[in-house]
């Protein structure tokens, strides 16, 4: 009788353990189990917000240097990467007939100067002639009154004097014309010289050559470039920032620039301008960020990640962004009341780059809120706090 009793007790205990384990398992896992969550305490503290954008390194002032008229490239004196001074000769276009035209124009100008001398001499000659003819006419007139000469002779002398006056006038006019000719030919010579100088392509500013688009012998139309250069003092990062986050960006704010070639290194910079023209298609704002100290080795067109510090607050109520949810059309956070989830609507402000969200109203410092949860919460869900939800789960 002893053994059956023992067996009954043993089996009962085994059965109880099995049932207890089963019940425990059903309650602890599966749909009946409480939702495991992580908890955070709402705190007041420093809040620093920043916006993030992706940009390309560009020179704000870049120059395409090319001829103003069609022509052939004669020589290119600099190469890509070359530093150039203001006014330095970079390239020359083939002048073709310009040199001949310039010497023709110079000769014409010199000839005009001589023609001016001739005109002056003619004026002097005409003055002398007029003077003599005038005096002769007066003399004949007085002697004519005393009847030494016939009227015809007197009138002939007067006509001579008038004619000499007209000749003087003509000579003076010719002198004026010759003077004008000198001016015209001078101007023409200057124009030819300017045209000749125009085939010399010089650097408009100090900078660096970024591209050599044409080699000697290439024929270009007006507007095509031989060389391209940039003003190396105007290097900046043209940053594109999502419109939705660009609200706080102002000129003068500090920025950190990470070039793609050096992912670990943040270079300090500054916002110089927030462009008025945004990009309507990509819905981005364009912000110019300049390096505090331009790096020496970079490439134009290089991708850069820019973080701009926009606001700093000292005593701000903020919660992790993962805690803010949309529930039944309202924004809010989940809190725990008597082991069950309860939704508290809040009004939120900006979101910082580390994912924290400013709470404007609806929460007090010290309240405990749900940050992460195993699934989407519903009001009244039983929850249990856990240190972390990831390590345990696969």
């Amino acid at each position, binding site marked *: 009788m002893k053994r*059956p009793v023992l*067996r*009954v007790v043993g*089996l009962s205990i085994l059965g109880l353990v*099995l*049932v207890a*384990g*089963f019940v425990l*398992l*059903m309650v602890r*896992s*599966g*749909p*009946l189990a409480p939702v495991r969550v*992580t908890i955070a305490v709402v705190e007041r503290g420093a809040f620093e917000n920043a916006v*993030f*954008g*992706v940009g390309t390194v560009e020179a704000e002032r870049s120059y395409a240097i090319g001829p103003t008229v069609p022509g052939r490239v004669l020589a290119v004196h600099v190469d890509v990467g070359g530093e150039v001074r203001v006014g330095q000769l970079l390239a020359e276009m083939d002048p073709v007939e310009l040199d001949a035209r310039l010497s023709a124009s110079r000769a014409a100008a010199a000839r005009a100067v001589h023609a001016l001398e001739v005109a002056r001499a003619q004026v002097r000659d005409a003055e002398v002639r007029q003077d003599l003819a005038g005096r002769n006419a007066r003399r004949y007139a007085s002697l004519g009154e005393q009847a030494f000469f016939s009227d015809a002779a007197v009138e002939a002398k007067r006509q001579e004097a008038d004619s000499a006056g007209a000749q003087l006038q003509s000579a003076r006019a010719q002198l004026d014309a010759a003077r004008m000719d000198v001016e015209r030919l001078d101007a023409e010579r200057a124009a030819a010289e300017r045209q000749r100088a125009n085939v010399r392509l010089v650097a408009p500013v100090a900078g660096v050559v970024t591209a050599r688009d044409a080699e000697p012998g290439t024929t270009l*139309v007006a*507007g*095509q*470039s031989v060389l391209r250069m940039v003003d190396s003092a105007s290097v900046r990062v043209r940053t594109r*920032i*999502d419109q*939705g*986050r660009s609200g706080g960006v102002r000129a003068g704010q500090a920025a950190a620039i990470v070039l793609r070639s050096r992912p670990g290194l943040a270079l300090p910079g500054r916002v110089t301008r927030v462009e008025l023209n945004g990009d309507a*298609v*990509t819905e981005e704002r364009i912000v110019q960020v300049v390096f505090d100290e331009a790096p020496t080795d970079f490439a134009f067109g290089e991708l850069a*990640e820019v973080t701009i510090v926009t606001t700093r607050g000292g005593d701000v109520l903020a919660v*992790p*962004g*993962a805690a803010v*949810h*949309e529930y039944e*059309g309202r924004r809010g956070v989940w809190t725990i009341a008597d082991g069950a989830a309860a939704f508290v609507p809040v009004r939120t402000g900006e*979101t*910082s*780059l*580390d*994912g924290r969200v400013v709470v404007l109203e609806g929460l007090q410092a010290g309240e405990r809120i749900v*940050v*992460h*949860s*195993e*699934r*989407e*919460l519903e009001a009244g869900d039983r929850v249990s706090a856990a240190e*972390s*939800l*990831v390590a345990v*789960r*696969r």
Partner: protein
Amino acid sequence: MISLAGRDILHHWAKYVFTGVGLGLLIGVTLSMAGIYRGMVDDAQVLLRSSGADIWAVQQETLGPYAEPSNLRDDAYRAILGIPGVAEASNVTYLTMQIRQGERDVRVMAVGFEPGRPGEPPFLVAGRRIARSHYEVVADVRTGFRLGERVRIRRHEYEVVGLTRRMVSSSGDPMVFLPLKDAQEAQFLKDNDAIVNERARTASNPALNRPGVPGLLDAILASQTASRSVNAVLVRVASGHEAEQVAENIRRWKHLEAYTRAQMEEILVAKLIETSARQIATFLVILAIVSAAIVSFIIYTMTLGKLRELAVLKLIGTPNRTIAAMILQQSLGLGLIGFVIGKTVATLWAPYFPKYVLLLPGDAVRGLAATIVVCAIASLLAIRVALKVDPATAIGG
């Protein structure tokens, strides 16, 4: 009053318990199979739930974005926002791709979404939401990515800033959420070699690279690399408006296809996973029949094993009812042990399946009812044999 069934079980308890355990494992497999089926349907539905949309606007004449490819311009959402009854509309892209993680490839569905709009992961289990407009991702834990890990998607490296759970595509691939613009690039921008080749091809076309038109080639090249497409626009309907009405407006005036949640569920559950779900369901039915057959055989052989004892019982005048009750009780007991063990093992091994296994309490209750019914029916055969035993065999040998 002593329990005949209990006494008999005590007599052969080891055999009884091990039979129960064996049966339990079989029931566990059946429950898991039901769980796999439920998981499959749930995978399809979770995709819809997680997107948080009431209407999917996709390319005309397609079943997109999940069942068929769909492409629309990324400014289509602005036009949709103007339709009465639309509370929110946002662009979203879906792309199934392989992501390299160390030595292995992870198959994921990359979802491009706009932070703060429909389509973003509704909850996280670790980390934070995406705060930058580029180069950050939130991944499902099943991808195996860890917080802070850097993963390469096409040409950029992304940092895993948050982890979520149960965010899978309809085929069960875990999701990776990334900012829309990055996702557009990943989907539509070609690799570097392709871009360089394409540029050379364009430049060698004399019609596009004309000496007299400076800038033409650059303009054409720029237009080739721009990507302005998304796969769908998710629409949230304002309260007080009928989703079907809004969808009809989108269909009629915007020349897009629009699916409400019910229609989308129909596409996903009825069309996309239909054959595989039916496959599982067929197998589930076969398993249930096999389990029932095995239970009845076990009870039957157990009864055959104690025919002599039954004859003795009959000889001493035990009523038939008592004998029948004993066999029924033993059969039900076996079923209960089997169910408890089956449910336990199914729960324990469910997380180790590569795809999601959803064990619904309703299914468990149904399983319990089925087990009891099957056990009761199975015992009928054994009861019939027991009642036909001739008491004379007890002494006759």
